[in-house]
């Protein structure tokens, strides 16, 4: 009895020792927790409190009965999605389109920022920045309208150019092989300037003495980009890459939907256009179904995010948490 309690006491005291040290660290930083209080309160109220509503994915939600009053249906809403004839093509199309966007769209703003950072003429640099930033504000409807206009086989620019060379004008908007390229590159056209801003900001904080030292050592500009600027951007780039992978299933439906036609449906149906069309076609609103699909997207996103974060930590010693 005695020895047992002694052992117990000894264990507790080690535990207490650790707890005490932890407490010291917490107390030492108490002001940081004060700073964090409001953000965490906000997070709980506006983000976590509504999460109880995600349970409607497992119910047949009816507004007349409320969230708790609606009948449980188990995994029926998920099974409905798995059994849909669209399930497979929609998942494949979403992943392909999304990873293509990510792989092509991710490095370009970085390159643009690095390149702009080298420009010495302030006027030129500022004008390029301003112009590349502007397309971000073009609405999707107009952007797609312009694509249809510019690429039209009879009245578009491509038609004019093709005719000038006496070629048959291509109908790119109807070519399923061209759909992904048009989608991704028009997206890059629209967003690269806006996405470059954060990198420009980070580049502006790189310690100038590093560059000065490199110049003294005889490094040329490309070498300085390679050994100073890029490592400086890496932590930010990694954060953005990891987070973007987590959202890889979230392709904004509007642009895809507006670009769809009978000729490219095979590659142009993604999860979010599918959900949108279900809502459009369905005579009765069905929040449970879309919530279930949302939950599914979240799970896939989470797995991808964890995997990529793990890889990033191994390869670059950067991690978002």
């Amino acid at each position, binding site marked *: 009895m005695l020895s047992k309690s002694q052992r117990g006491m000894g264990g507790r005291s080690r535990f207490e020792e650790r707890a005490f040290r932890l407490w010291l660290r917490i107390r030492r930083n108490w002001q940081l927790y004060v700073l964090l209080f409001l953000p965490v309160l906000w997070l709980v109220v506006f983000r976590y409190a509504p999460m109880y509503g995600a349970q409607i994915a497992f119910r047949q939600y009816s507004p007349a009965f409320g969230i708790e009053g609606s009948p449980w249906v188990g995994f029926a809403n998920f099974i409905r999605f798995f059994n849909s004839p669209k399930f497979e093509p929609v998942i494949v199309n979403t992943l392909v389109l999304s990873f293509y966007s990510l792989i092509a769209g991710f490095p370009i703003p970085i390159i643009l920022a690095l390149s702009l950072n080298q420009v010495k003429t302030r006027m030129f640099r500022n004008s390029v920045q301003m112009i590349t930033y502007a397309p971000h504000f073009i609405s999707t409807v107009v952007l797609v309208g312009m694509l249809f206009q510019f690429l039209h086989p009879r009245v578009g620019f491509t038609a004019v150019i093709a005719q000038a060379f006496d070629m048959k004008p291509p109908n790119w908007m109807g070519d399923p092989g061209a759909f992904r390229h048009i989608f991704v590159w028009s997206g890059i056209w629209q967003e690269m300037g806006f996405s470059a*801003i954060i990198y420009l900001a980070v580049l502006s904080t790189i310690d100038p003495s590093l560059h000065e030292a490199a110049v003294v050592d005889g490094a040329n500009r490309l070498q300085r980009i390679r050994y100073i600027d890029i490592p400086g951007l890496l932590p930010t780039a990694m954060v953005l890459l990891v987070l973007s992978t987590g959202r890889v299933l979230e392709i904004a439906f509007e642009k895809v939907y507006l670009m769809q036609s009978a000729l490219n449906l095979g590659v142009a149906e993604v999860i979010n256009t599918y959900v949108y069309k279900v809502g459009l076609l369905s005579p009765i609103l069905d929040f449970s179904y879309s919530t279930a699909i949302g939950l599914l997207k979240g799970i896939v996103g989470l797995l991808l995010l964890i995997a990529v974060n793990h890889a990033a930590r191994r390869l670059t010693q950067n991690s978002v948490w």
Partner: protein
Amino acid sequence: MASMSSYESNINKVNESPVDRVFMFVNAAVLLVITIVILLPLIFIVSASFSSAEAVIAGKVTLWPVDFSLLGYETIFEHKKVWNGFANSLFYTYFGTIFNVIMTIIAAYPLSRNDLVGRRFITIAFIFTMLFNGGLIPTYMVVRHLGLLNTRWAMILPTGIGVFNLLITISFFRTTIPPELVEAARIDGANDFRIFGSIVLPLARPIIAVLVLFYAVNHWNSYFQALIYLKDQDLFPLQIVLREILIENSIDASMLIDIEDLIVREGLRELLKYSLIVVASVPVLLIYPFVQKHFVKGMMIGSVK
């Protein structure tokens, strides 16, 4: 000269090598090509917005207004709602951005400190909400329970902190504020509030500029929140009003269409498509130079350190 950063001016004293000169030339040329590719469609939009609807319909507009006309702009500004929406959007953008930036900074700094107990847990809790949310209805109900429905607060409070922005800021603090600096300040007797106020905030200028831009653009462009939380027309932001004017082109085949209605739709759409973009984006384009300025300043503060 304020326009030249300190290191550029130092480096320019050194003669550029031929490799660098070639590189600079190629770099400038590539940037020029990119700029032109981006600029041409933009010019098209602006030209179309100043052309007559007939010219736009007939496809006559390329890079210069045809049948110069201000009708599109006149039609937009004729709507009393537009002016009201403009004022509302300014309000939401101004106060919303202040709220967002403060929240993000005070969350990001503690979370960037490696010695903070619970740092990982809280960071992951934030990221988790990027992937999972309760959905539209529960969020709506929370906002309703708080009594924010149909008030200006509903446009400001629920946005709070953007996860992307938070993590960028955390990463920024981690790379620009070395732990040794914080330690040194502590030994000098500064507490965390002081460190935050006198070291972190001044160093954070470039990231604050970026946050201001991102959040402001977000507020300016947002309409979905207004759609859900606001019912009172007097509170509608500009984007809702503009979308209301620009009736979309989708026609439900199963519905009957009155020919008058069709004429209204088609006419307004053709007339306003391009002028609406210009009206909606000029204010946010104008803030960019002010934000840009801080990137250069940030550089100099960095060198002072």
